[in-house]
């Protein structure tokens, strides 16, 4: 058990967290403009800017979480534990700081910013969960990473 806990996790393909984060960035690029336009209609230009800022915070949060877990996973499973917990603390602090610094800025509308953070975070997660559960249930549908395709040809 001790030897297993200190040895790195061997994953046969690209790191799963990185793949999920990339997929979420792509999905955010799809829904982002729609959300910005919709909130722009309701709250005006400031609302659109705040929505874009909230979207950027959510995407950066996912990417940072994936980067930290991937990095920790390469070292050891025990390190993943520390990275997840301290990462949670660090990311919450960064989100707090990101909003605290702009709270009095003239272009910030806090209501669309808050709504964007919550809905985008949950929406992207549910969308991704659907894809992940489908790829676990039907592994044949899982797309092959581009690097694998090029090496097999």
């Amino acid at each position, binding site marked *: *058990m001790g030897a*297993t*806990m200190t040895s790195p*996790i*061997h*994953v*046969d*393909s690209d*790191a*799963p*967290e990185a793949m*999920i984060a990339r997929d979420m960035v792509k999905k955010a690029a799809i829904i982002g403009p729609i959300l910005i336009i919709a909130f722009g209609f309701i709250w005006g230009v400031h609302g659109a800017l705040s929505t874009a800022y909230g979207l950027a915070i959510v995407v950066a*949060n*996912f990417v940072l*979480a*994936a980067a930290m*877990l991937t990095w920790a*996973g390469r070292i050891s*499973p*025990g390190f*993943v*534990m520390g990275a*997840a*917990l301290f990462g*949670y*603390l660090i*990311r*919450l602090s960064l*989100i*707090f700081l990101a*909003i605290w610094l702009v*709270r009095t800025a003239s272009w910030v509308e*806090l*209501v669309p*910013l*808050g*709504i964007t*953070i*919550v809905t985008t*975070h*949950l929406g992207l*997660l549910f969308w*991704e*969960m659907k894809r*992940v559960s489908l790829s*676990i249930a039907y592994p044949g549908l899982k797309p092959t990473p581009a690097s694998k395709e090029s090496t097999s040809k």
Partner: protein
Amino acid sequence: MSILAQATTAAEAALTAADQKSISAAGYAGLAYGLATLGPGIGIGYLVGQSVQAMARQPEAAGMVRTTMFLGIAFTEALALIGFVVFILLKFV
């Protein structure tokens, strides 16, 4: 001592009802944010602990475990984010 007490009473009297309401709202908002981060902290700790145990028992399933762990962490974190947004809205709007 009585001078200090008189000064405190005078300062309290100087606070308007709106100020007092704002102070209490800030206090409750902070409390809500603190409580909102406590639960997800426990949840993430439990989730990752179980995932690490699963990876140690079955290293060939590490990829799947890490995928579901990452999603689980993000879902748990959503609770803290909701608490944070409520805090921001209570405090500043």
